[in-house]
């Protein structure tokens, strides 16, 4: 990747808090126009990394460049739109005034800001409520507004830290579809999430961070395949079954009860299907559904974050 192709370049980034290393010597690159997912369990170092790259806090060691400029510099901030985790808009201002404030902070001319703001609020389904105080907005409306505030400057790169966390289905869908369409138009998107479906649906590549270290970077599909040991069979019976009985079946590595279904992780799904059919017959049970599941990104995530093996 040439220097001109890189939207983000992170080298040996480290951040410590009171003896705890929150981000531990991480390196990665994001290409221009890429939709890059940054995944990790709670406390893995995702938000700390985003805060360093967006210039909110400083790293103890290492460097981060955003569109070729040092992270935290005015130049780097000027080309970036940011939706911080748990951020809020100003409750005592209207949605419209919040947007215009952001435009002023990015030095956008008033006429241009108003024009862009109208379009954004329309796309975000907020135009009719634009003059209402933000404190009267629902959580979904607030989050859509915060996304609008990040987009008012028409940034080259967008940082989204858990943008759909805790939102209703409609807001989540709207935000996901907007992220996708922005990326289709060529914007680089850096998406922090622990929603595996979201990452799987949206991202070109994902990085998985755990305990401050990057444990994997690849396309979601390749990560999924790389952890094929997490194949599983999902089965449901007419009556409930003891998880321990299922765990004792041959070739079963692990059993999870998911609602009225059981997910059995195995290295030999074909053999397990036969075993389950025999098991149901000998216990006078009827099988309602039986599916062999390919490993999901979530399985890859669990495997990588639990085992911490070096995939990079």
């Amino acid at each position, binding site marked *: 990747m040439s220097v001109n192709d890189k939207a983000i370049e992170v080298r040996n980034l480290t951040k410590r808090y009171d003896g705890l290393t929150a981000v531990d010597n991480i390196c990665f690159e994001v290409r221009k126009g890429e939709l890059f997912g940054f995944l990790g369990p709670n406390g893995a170092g995702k938000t700390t990394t985003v805060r360093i790259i967006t*210039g909110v806090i*400083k790293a103890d060691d290492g460097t981060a460049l955003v569109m070729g400029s040092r992270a935290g510099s*005015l130049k780097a901030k000027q080309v970036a739109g940011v939706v*911080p985790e748990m951020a809020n*808009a100003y*409750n*005592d201002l209207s949605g419209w005034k919040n947007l215009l404030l952001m435009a*002023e*902070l990015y*030095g956008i001319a008033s006429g241009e800001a108003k024009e862009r703001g109208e379009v954004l609020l329309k796309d975000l389904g907020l135009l009719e409520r634009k003059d209402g105080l933000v404190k009267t907005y629902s959580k979904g409306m607030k989050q859509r507004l915060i996304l609008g505030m990040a987009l008012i400057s028409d940034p080259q790169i967008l940082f989204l830290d858990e943008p759909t966390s805790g939102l209703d289905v409609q807001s989540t869908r709207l935000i996901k579809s907007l992220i996708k369409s922005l990326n289709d138009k060529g914007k680089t998107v850096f998406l922090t999430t622990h929603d595996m479906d979201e990452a799987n649906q949206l991202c070109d590549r994902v990085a998985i961070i755990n305990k401050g270290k990057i444990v994997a970077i690849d396309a979601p599909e390749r990560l999924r395949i790389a952890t094929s040991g997490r194949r599983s069979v999902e089965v449901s019976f007419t009556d409930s079954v003891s998880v321990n009985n299922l765990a004792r079946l041959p070739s079963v590595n692990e059993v999870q009860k998911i609602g009225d279904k059981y997910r059995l992780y195995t290295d030999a799904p074909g053999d397990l299907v036969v075993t389950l059919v025999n098991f149901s017959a000998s216990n006078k049970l009827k099988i309602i559904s039986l599916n062999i599941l390919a490993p999901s990104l979530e399985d890859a995530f669990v495997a990588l974050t639990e085992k911490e093996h070096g995939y990079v």
Partner: protein
Amino acid sequence: MSDLVEFRQQFWRSLAVARKDIRIYYAKGPVIIYGVLMPVFLFLAFTIGRSLPAESMIPGLLGMILFFTATAVSPIVVPWEAQARTLERLMAAPVKLETIIFGDVLASFIFGAGISAVPIIIGLTLGITIASPGILVLAIVLAAFCFAALGNVFSTPPTNTPATVNMIAAGVRLPIVFMSGVFIPLDELPAWGQNIAYASPLTYFIDIARNLMDGQGHLPLVIDFLAIVGFTVVFLIIAMKLHHRTMPRRI
């Protein structure tokens, strides 16, 4: 980008921060009423029954109102924004920390300077005369900025609880009022009292006001003005340095 262009850009953006502060924190009925009433009542508590002429009372009243209003809200803006989770968004915008702080100081300055019109109108109604209105306006502008910068220093402790910051601010503001010649002119204070008074920026503003309204100034006007400018520079440097240290810990 040249330094001059960057400076101009950041200045305009600090005005946006100031406008935001005024809309959210200052342009509220209770804030304005509290800003005027609190010092008025405190002042009346110390002057009623002493049969002082208006020209002796108004400089103290003006000084107290200017001091209290310019330092009333600025201490809580940063902790409030950290608590309301709006600070991180602000810090991710292309503005320097100095721009945010300057914007906060500017809002406080406008609020303090604007409300100082109230005691001046009261004084003019009571028949006082101002020897040089232009010099008084200059003094109000400089002192309002100085007190706003002091208010911002109060907001530097790394707590996101506005009540804690308010307690710290109150613990400093009240002693400053008592040691600054508000109730007793500097000339009437003992030497040790005068030495303590010289450590307060409010002393110099009240001395200017007394000089212009009562002809009873204790120090030459030039010294008063230089002292106010000196305090302003010191407060701004302290505020910027401490905010640089404490701001990341608020997030």
